[in-house]
């Protein structure tokens, strides 16, 4: 059953040092508030998984939470580099960062395979790319009917899946709308799941029977965190803070500036205890 703990309690119960953690949201609904709580709780040796690392992973990496990054595009969208990610890769600061690198097509399929209970995904992909050979996670199989050589990647089954969504009802069912990315897949693929939402409502009121709704029994903890996706956005609630994405370039370029910013804006803040504490039951893998 879904619990409604505080964000601090949810992260404490669900995210452990050494875990593989996927925080997803494709430009839209990126779970910044949850990521900040992971930073505040000082998690270490995480394998961070995300198609587009974005600023939240730049922050986690810069604060030394990560040992490894599984990703497919690591930039500040429309702005340039993720400087903390580059500093970790190019200069091992604050720690070395192992990379496991995909294409979007492969990584999206790997999440879908994880959600589907399959050990691997097939795709017509990576043809002629130098990514093949860099990594043992790209292999090839033959179609048993046509003989065609197809790329295979292992399914992604994160220890923890974290997303932000528009709203939940009091049973813990969660509605996502707009650019839905791989959010459904990461929740179904992960062993433990945390969803932050803009609001908790009496009635989800999905506009269509085919609206993406995650049933409560797929989620360990739901936490109401209004504005929890800022500076990314929540369609129907607030827009993307493009100016902050642009400003991040200067903030993150220098190590000291970055740390000062994190101290002031993340470490000094407290997670909103918007819902009083409740035990989080962790489902078995």
């Amino acid at each position, binding site marked *: 059953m879904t619990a409604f703990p505080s964000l601090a309690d949810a992260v404490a119960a669900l995210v452990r040092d050494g875990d593989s953690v996927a925080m997803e949201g494709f430009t839209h609904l990126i779970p910044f508030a949850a990521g900040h709580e992971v930073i505040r709780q000082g998690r270490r040796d995480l394998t961070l998984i995300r198609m587009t690392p974005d600023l939240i992973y730049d922050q986690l990496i810069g604060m030394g939470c990560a040992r490894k990054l599984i990703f497919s595009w690591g930039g500040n969208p*429309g702005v340039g580099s993720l400087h903390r990610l580059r500093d970790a890769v190019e200069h091992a600061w604050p720690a070395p960062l192992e990379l496991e690198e995909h294409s979007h097509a492969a990584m*999206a399929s790997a999440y879908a395979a994880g959600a589907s209970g399959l050990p691997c995904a097939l795709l017509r992909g990576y*043809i002629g790319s130098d990514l093949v050979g*860099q990594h043992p996670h790209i292999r090839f199989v033959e179609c048993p009917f046509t003989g065609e050589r197809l790329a295979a990647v292992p399914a992604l089954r994160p220890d923890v899946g974290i997303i932000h969504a528009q709203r939940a009802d009091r049973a813990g069912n969660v509605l996502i709308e707009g*650019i839905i990315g791989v959010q459904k897949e990461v929740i179904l693929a992960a062993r433990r799941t945390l969803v932050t939402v803009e609001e908790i409502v009496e009635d989800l009121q999905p506009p269509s029977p085919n609206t993406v709704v995650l049933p409560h029994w797929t989620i360990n903890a739901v936490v109401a965190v209004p504005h929890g996706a800022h500076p990314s956005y929540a369609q129907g609630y607030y827009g993307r803070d493009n100016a902050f994405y642009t400003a991040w370039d200067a903030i993150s370029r220098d190590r000291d500036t970055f740390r000062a910013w994190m101290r002031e804006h993340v470490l000094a803040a407290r997670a909103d205890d918007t819902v009083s504490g409740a035990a989080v039951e962790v489902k078995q893998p």
Partner: protein
Amino acid sequence: MSGERVVTRGAGTTAYTPTEMMTVTAARALTNDDVCFVGIGAPSAACNLARLTHVPAITLIYESGTIATKPDVLPLSIGDPELCATALATVSVPEMFQYWLQGGRVTVGFLGGAQIDRFGNINSTVIGPYDHPRVRLPGAGGAPEIASACGQIYAIMRQSPRAFVPKVDFITSFGHGDGGDHRRRLGLRTAGITLVITDLGLLRPDPETKELTVTAIHPGVTRDQITQATGWPIRFATDVSATPPPDSHDLDVLRDLLARTARAHGTTSAAGDGST
């Protein structure tokens, strides 16, 4: 476009910059029947300019899952709210890559990139060795499968010896490999890169060797400029045409689009390089 000097003035037309020339020329390559997978940055500017001018029926797809989107301002990222709000439909990212891209529904993939080589291979991963990169670039994103699954690929990049290299440090997205029939030998059935639009002219693969060759030169640009801006001894096709300059309607629409975009984002330009 601010900060860039106006260096070209077409005969009897409005003044324009090389970037404007590049964007307008790229837009002209598209048709109403195209279903176009759009990279962020310069490709996005060109594709939306095309939609707002001569090909209103073109279908633009962004990898965030937005199909047949008609943004009023250029997105800063590949998943801006504007893209979803104006799309015919928004699908999940796995569906986008599986059903729409890999399914072969896309006629043109429009890409940017950090480096392109003589045979149209594109690098967006690393400068220097993979394990100890001099510069770590953002990585593949959708590009490797865009490059293999779309009917053909158009690339748009400013021409310089650092960007146009004899051989890319890392093949993120396969173009024509070592040239000739390399694509066919790998089982690829799509055309790959057929057109590179730069701020100096147009490059197309030689029909036989697949070496990128200059087929058109923008007004006011010299062959020598192009040679200087290319990292390999670039060839010119037998028939090199002169690219027509942008007309004032193209420029008006483009400038309005960029001005609206700047107002919306609070920045001076959203046409910079970005994700695939």
